[in-house]
C-alpha cells in the first residue's frame, strides 16, 4: 500500500496510507493460497470469511466481496484501517512464514472503500416489533449493536454524552489514520436503519437510570474513557495532558486550528509522550503535526510496543524519537512544564503476560527539556453510569462483568466493548456488540 511522504503528511491531518488501486488489489488477492483450513479466519476476532472475500476480489467481483465482509463486519472501512492485523489474520497467514503475508487489512479497506463509492445497499429491516432498546454510547460497540437491533425491527435509541457520535473513533483516533467522513458515513448508515441518536445526553445524569431500565433491553457501550495518570510529582503543571485530553482538543475540538476554532492547546516545542500503545503513537504524531520535536518514552523495549506495527513505522518516519527502556519519575517546572526526569529501565524475568519486567536502574536518572508532557499509559471504564445501576457486578478494574452472551448481572441489561474488556480494540468491541445484540434480539423474540 502506498503512503504519502513523511514531510508532506506532517503538514496536515490528511490520511497517510493511500490504499490499494483496483489493479493492486486484484494482484494482491491473487497471492492468497486459498488454504483449505484457513488460519486467518481463526485469527480474526469476528471470523470473517477471509479467503471467500479475497477470492471475490481476485475475480473482480467486488460487490460479492463486500457482501461477504458485511456478513461479519459492520465497519469494514474502519477495521481495514485500524485493526492490528499483524497480531490477528495477517499474523497467522501461511505466506508469512516464508515471505510476506497477504495484505488482508488493505484488501478489506479497498473493498469497503469501493463499496462506499458505489453506494452501500442497506440491509433489510424487519417490520417494527414495538420493542424498545436503549444503547448507551456511540462508539464501535454502540453503533454495531444499534444496527443489529434496528435490523431486527426494534425501536433503537442511542444516547451519547458528547456532541458528536463515534466514541474513540471520533475523539481519539486522528483523521490521518481514520478520516472522519468514514466514521460519519458508518454512523449515518446505522441511523438510516431507523435508529435514533440523542447527542449531549449523559446517561445517569441527563437520563435517569430508572428511565433506561424501563426499556425492554439495554446495551451498555460506554467504553473505557477514564484516563489514568502516573501519579508522579509535577503532573498538575500547565502543559501536562492525558492523551485523551490532548487528542480530544485536536480531534473533536480542532485546537490545531485555533483561533479559528475556540479551543486552545499548549502546542509545545518539545513534547514528551509516555507510553507505547496506539494512543501514545497517535498523540506523538499529532504533536509532530502541531510542530513540536517529539520524544516517546516507553518503559519496555521497542519490540514490546503494543501499538500496531504500521503506526510505529509511521511515527518513526515522521521523526518521533523513541526512548525505550526509560520511565519518567518527575515532571519539572512551574507553573509550566520545563522538563521531565526519567530513569533507565532494565528488563528482568518475564511477568505473567510473558513480557520481561522492567526494573529501574539505580543512578541512571536523566532529564529531557520539554514543555509538554502527554501521558498515554492507559484508560479504564468510566464509573459514572455503571456505578449507578443497582446490582451491576463489576470486576476489579471496574469493568462490567458479562457472560459469553454479553449479559450482565442485571436482567435485560447487556454490555460489550471496552466497558466490559477494559481498553481493547475496535474489532473486539464490534464482535462483542454483535454477540450481545444477537442475545438481545433472541430475548426480545421470546418475550
Amino acid at each position, binding site marked *: 500500500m502506498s503512503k504519502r511522504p513523511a514531510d508532506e503528511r506532517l503538514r496536515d491531518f490528511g490520511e497517510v496510507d493511500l490504499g490499494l488501486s483496483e489493479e493492486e488489489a486484484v494482484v494482491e488477492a491473487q497471492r492468497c493460497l486459498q488454504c483449505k483450513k484457513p488460519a486467518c479466519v481463526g485469527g480474526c476476532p469476528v471470523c470473517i470469511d477471509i479467503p471467500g472475500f479475497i477470492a471475490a476480489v481476485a475475480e473482480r467481483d467486488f460487490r460479492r466481496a463486500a457482501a461477504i465482509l458485511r456478513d461479519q463486519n459492520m465497519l469494514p472501512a474502519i477495521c481495514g484501517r485500524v485493526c492490528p492485523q499483524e497480531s490477528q489474520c495477517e499474523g497467522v497467514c501461511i505466506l508469512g512464514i516464508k515471505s510476506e503475508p497477504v495484505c488482508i487489512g488493505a484488501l478489506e479497506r479497498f473493498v469497503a472503500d469501493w463499496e462506499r463509492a458505489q453506494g452501500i445497499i442497506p440491509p433489510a429491516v424487519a417490520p417494527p416489533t414495538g420493542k424498545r432498546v436503549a444503547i448507551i454510547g456511540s462508539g464501535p460497540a454502540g453503533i454495531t449493536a444499534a444496527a443489529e437491533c434496528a435490523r431486527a425491527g426494534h425501536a433503537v435509541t442511542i444516547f451519547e454524552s458528547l*456532541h458528536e457520535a463515534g466514541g474513540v473513533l471520533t475523539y481519539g483516533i486522528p483523521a490521518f489514520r481514520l478520516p472522519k467522513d468514514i466514521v460519519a458515513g458508518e454512523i449515518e448508515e446505522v441511523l438510516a436503519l431507523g435508529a435514533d441518536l440523542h*447527542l449531549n*445526553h449523559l446517561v445517569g445524569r*441527563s*437520563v435517569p437510570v430508572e428511565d433506561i431500565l424501563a426499556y425492554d433491553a439495554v446495551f451498555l457501550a460506554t467504553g473505557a474513557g477514564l484516563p489514568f495518570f502516573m501519579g508522579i510529582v509535577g503532573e498538575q503543571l500547565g502543559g501536562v495532558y*492525558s492523551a485523551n485530553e490532548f487528542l480530544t482538543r485536536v480531534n473533536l475540538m480542532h485546537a490545531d486550528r485555533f483561533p479559528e*476554532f475556540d479551543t486552545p492547546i*499548549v502546542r509545545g516545542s518539545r513534547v514528551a509522550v509516555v507510553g507505547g500503545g496506539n494512543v501514545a503513537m497517535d498523540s506523538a504524531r499529532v504533536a509532530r503535526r502541531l510542530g513540536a520535536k517529539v520524544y516517546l518514552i516507553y518503559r519496555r523495549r521497542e519490540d514490546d510496543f503494543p501499538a500496531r506495527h504500521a503506526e510505529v513505522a509511521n511515527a518513526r518516519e515522521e521523526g518521533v524519537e523513541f526512548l525505550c527502556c526509560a520511565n519518567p519519575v518527575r515532571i519539572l517546572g512551574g507553573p509550566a512544564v520545563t522538563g521531565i526526569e526519567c530513569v533507565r529501565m532494565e528488563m528482568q524475568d518475564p511477568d505473567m503476560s510473558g513480557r520481561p519486567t522492567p526494573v529501574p536502574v539505580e543512578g541512571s536518572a536523566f532529564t529531557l527539556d520539554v514543555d509538554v508532557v502527554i501521558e498515554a499509559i492507559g484508560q479504564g471504564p468510566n464509573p*459514572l453510569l455503571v456505578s449507578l445501576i443497582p446490582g451491576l457486578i463489576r470486576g476489579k478494574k471496574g469493568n462490567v462483568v458479562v457472560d459469553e452472551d454479553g449479559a450482565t448481572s442485571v436482567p435485560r441489561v447487556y454490555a460489550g466493548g471496552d466497558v466490559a474488556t477494559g481498553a481493547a480494540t475496535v474489532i473486539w468491541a464490534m464482535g462483542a456488540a454483535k454477540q450481545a445484540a444477537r442475545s438481545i434480539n433472541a430475548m426480545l423474540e421470546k418475550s
Partner: protein
Amino acid sequence: MYRIEKTAETADNIFEFWIHAPHVARHARAGQFLVLRIDEHGERIPLTISATDGDSVRVVFMAVGKTTTQLAAMSPGESIRDVVGPLGRPSEIRKWGTCVVIGGGVGIACTPIIARELKEAGNTVIGIIGARNAGFLLLEDEMRETCDELVVCTDDGSKGFHGFPADILKERLSTQTIDAIWIIGPAIMMKITSGVSRPFGIKTFVSLNPIMVDGTGMCGSCRVTVGGETRFACVDGPEFDAHEVDFDELMQRQRIYGDSERRALEHYHEHQCRCGGEGHE
C-alpha cells in the same frame, strides 16, 4: 439546538440567560452544572445551573473571554448548538441544622438554588452575599426570599456591611452554632473565606471551577488535588471539602490558557469588525 428564551444584563457585563434544555432542566439539582458549545467552532465551557423552571435552565455569567462575550451578544430566539447536563454531583443536601450559604461575585448566582434545597430539607439557612459594590449584588431578592436571614456586604460599603463575607462568617462562627457552610465564588475568595471556618472544624463546601473539556470524566483537564489525591472536578465534584482543596494549584491551572484566551478574544473582535457586526462601536 437549544433555544435561548430570555436574556438580561443584570449588572455591568453580567448576564442572565434562560435556555430551553429539557434533558438538563428536568433532572438538575443544586450544585450541578452544564457544558455548552455555542456553534461548530465553539469550545465547551461549563456554567453552573442557577435555577430551573420546567424545561428551562438559568445560567449567569460574566462576559470575560471569547465564548462568554459571544454568548452575551446572543438574543432570545437564537440557539446554542450543544448543551449537556446536568453534570457533576449535586450538593450534599440533608438536614444539617444551621447552614450558611455564601456567594461572592458571579458566584452569588449559584446560591439561591442551594439555599432553597437546604431549606426544603429542614435547615435554617443564613445567606451571605458579597460583591464589589451594590450594583453587583445579583439575585439579592431571591436570596432574601429563600433564606431565613440574609447578610449583604460590599467591598466599597455602597450597600450593607462594608467588607467581605469572610468577616461576617468569622463573627457568626464565634457567636452561634453552625453545622455546614457553602462558599461559591472566585477561587481566591473561596480560599480565604474557607480559611475562616477551618479552625472551627465545620464542614465547608466549595464549588470548584477548573478548566474543563468534556465534563464527563473523560479527559482529566479538570483535575484538582483534594486531600492529597487527584480528583476530577466534573464527576467527583464540583463541590469538595474546602479544607482539603489545594487552591493555589487550582488557581495556577486556571491560568494555563491565559494568553490563548486573550488571542481568542482579539480574533473574535477583529472578525466581528470585518463582518461589520457588533463589537464595532
